[in-house]
């Protein structure tokens, strides 16, 4: 079965591109550092965000009920979906009932998770992703490779060629300003002619019954305000109790995500536009199951800023597609195995457990501890290689007996130097593919210590 290492290999083998990808994302991490360091209260903000989220999770049903009653009072129609399919049915139902055949979408990882686009397209709805990065990957018939920067894996020449092919831009033209201008014309046309607009939700406020969407391009605002119908789709963990709590999260989100002090637009939708209607679809799709698990529920605190992807030394060098899941990187590696442990068993192991993700996370999700905890669960459930488990229990047996350990070490230090290189560095030794083994000393520490003490 192919896992992360196999999918990462071709990405790593293209070294210039892998380095370029690594540097692009490190650049975003550095921008984040500059913004975060400008706030003396940064660590306090993280603590507050963590506490607010943890509190919210402990009363999630209450806050969702409060949100619903306030939203309904604001004239919003609230829908509930247990899973992806129900979510897709609800969205399609709203569109079909009103005869809408053209939908514009702004960025929503939830609809990616639910595979909404193919569902709607199969039923005759034209779906246009209007975020530039999302539109680029949509035209390439690819999923996003990053949750905030969907086309981060592409070079300007790739996009120039794509636009030449699909939007009729000049052949060979790859200037980002030129390409963005071409997309602007194309997307405004789609926005102006849509029958409905769908947005994601960054935060839903229980106290006000409204949702907040943070974007830079302005596409979400056009999508939600030009057509008469606005559908906002949210995972049920997006709720925050009070309007004042937004300050904490809005301050953290863009700084962590892209190193901006705030996104260009932080839009508060508390009801339909004049003459229009607004729907909010609240989706579970496995989240209540995660909430029930003490070790993993903190992953629901995630605000999808993508900072853990940008800082992850593995993500930067293996690319979003190596994860094989809608959400890549450390947070994806924690979420994916909940959905399908067998299919995503390699993801919690696709980490050196360096912990940079946990330290960068604006809501203090203990990501690297969750990755470690998932490893143990996957082993227990028999989802990992039995050869590795066997090797580990043999090692454990040896280490439980000091004489065996001592003899084994002695033997290794004597035998390894005698082995011919082609044997030692054969294909069965992944360590040695690119690295030398350490030189074998003739004496162990305990041998040296005996001499030291009799000296």
């Amino acid at each position: 079965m192919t896992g992360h290492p196999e999918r990462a290999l071709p990405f790593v083998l293209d070294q210039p591109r892998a380095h370029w990808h690594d540097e692009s994302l490190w650049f975003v991490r550095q921008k984040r550092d500059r913004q975060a360091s400008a706030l003396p209260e940064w660590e306090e903000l993280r603590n507050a965000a963590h506490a607010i989220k943890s509190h919210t999770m402990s009363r999630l049903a209450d806050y969702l009920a409060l949100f619903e009653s306030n939203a309904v009072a604001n004239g919003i129609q609230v829908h509930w979906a247990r899973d992806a399919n129900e979510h897709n049915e609800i969205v399609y139902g709203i569109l079909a009932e009103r005869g809408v055949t053209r939908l514009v979408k702004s960025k929503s990882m939830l609809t990616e998770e639910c595979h909404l686009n193919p569902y709607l397209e199969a039923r005759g709805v034209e779906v246009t992703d209007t975020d530039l990065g999302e539109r680029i990957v949509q035209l390439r018939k690819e999923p996003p490779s990053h949750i905030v920067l969907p086309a981060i894996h592409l070079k300007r020449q790739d996009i120039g060629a794509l636009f030449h092919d699909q939007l009729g831009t000049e052949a060979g033209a790859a200037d980002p300003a030129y390409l963005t201008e071409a997309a602007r014309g194309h997307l405004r046309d789609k926005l102006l002619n849509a029958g409905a607009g769908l947005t994601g939700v960054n935060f839903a406020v229980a106290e006000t019954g409204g949702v907040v969407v943070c974007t830079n391009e302005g596409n979400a605002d056009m999508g939600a305000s030009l057509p008469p119908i606005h559908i906002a789709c949210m995972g049920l963990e997006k709720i925050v109790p009070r309007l004042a709590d937004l300050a904490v999260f809005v301050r953290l989100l863009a700084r962590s995500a892209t190193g901006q002090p705030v996104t260009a637009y932080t839009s508060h939708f508390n009801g339909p536009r004049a003459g229009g209607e607004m729907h909010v679809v609240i989706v579970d799709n496995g989240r209540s199951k995660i909430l029930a698990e003490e070790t993993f529920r903190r992953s629901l605190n995630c605000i999808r800023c993508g900072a853990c992807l940008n800082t992850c030394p593995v993500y930067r060098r293996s690319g979003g597609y190596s994860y094989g899941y809608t959400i890549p990187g450390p947070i994806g590696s924690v979420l994916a195995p909940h959905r399908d442990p067998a299919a995503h068993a390699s993801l919690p192991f696709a980490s050196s457990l360096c912990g940079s993700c946990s330290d960068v996370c604006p809501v203090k999700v203990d990501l690297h501890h969750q990755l470690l905890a998932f490893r143990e669960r996957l082993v227990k459930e028999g989802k990992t290689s039995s050869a590795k488990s066997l090797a580990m229990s043999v090692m454990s047996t040896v280490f439980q007996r000091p004489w065996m350990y001592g003899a084994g070490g002695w033997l290794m230090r004597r035998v390894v130097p005698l082995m011919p290189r082609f044997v030692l560095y054969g294909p069965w030794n992944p360590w040695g593919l690119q690295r030398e083994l350490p030189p074998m000393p003739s004496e162990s520490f305990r041998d040296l210590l005996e001499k030291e003490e009799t000296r």
Partner: protein
Amino acid sequence: MTQIGLFIPCYVDQLYPRVGLATWRILRGLGLDVEYPKSQTCCGQPMANSGCGDAARPLAERFLDVFGKYKHVVTPSGSCASMVRNHYDQWLAGKPGFDHLKSNTFELCEYLVDIVGVTRADGDFPGRVGIHMSCHGLRELRMARSSERMDAPFDKVRGLLAQLRGIELVTLSRPDECCGFGGTFAVAEQAVSCMMGRDRIADHERAGAQVIAGFDMSCLMHLEGLIRREGKPLKVAHVAEMLEGARLS
């Protein structure tokens, strides 16, 4: 009660005995009461990090048996110290002596700085040195402030090494990025692991380092493996070896 139980990780015992000896000499040189319990083997980290908790548990229990009697446990490895301090709870919580063991196990540098109170290192180490901040010491033991965090900066390792005569500590462009060792990660994800390692080495080279210094031989073993394969002039050194000849006070 003997003051210090010296914990020399299995791979240091077998592969880097000089590092263990340097640690012993540093502690003895400070006039401390040190003992090396010979029945020790491995803390169980390789098994735990592979998700094999059942294989790790007996080693954690053994560790408590062997080291429970000491006032302090000191080891020249941030990663192994973190295993005891941060990852033994699941198996040992509530067992007699565990709370004491957990709060009294230290990596060498933090022991010198926080417990012994060493403020001066009088010795020589001429040359340009880059410090490799191994992740578990950095982010689990908090031996320095990690680059992600925005609270007041500190660095217990740099604080010691910077005092050596002739040493020039170089500035890396990525001060604390992971080297890609990661235990079994180094093998299971060898392609990514080796790219991470080479990038780390390149950063030290660009900064003009002649020596990569660290407090975890596991990371240094990985980096040295890449350095030697590529025939680079860089060397790696454990902080214990660098401080061995110094007078600490």
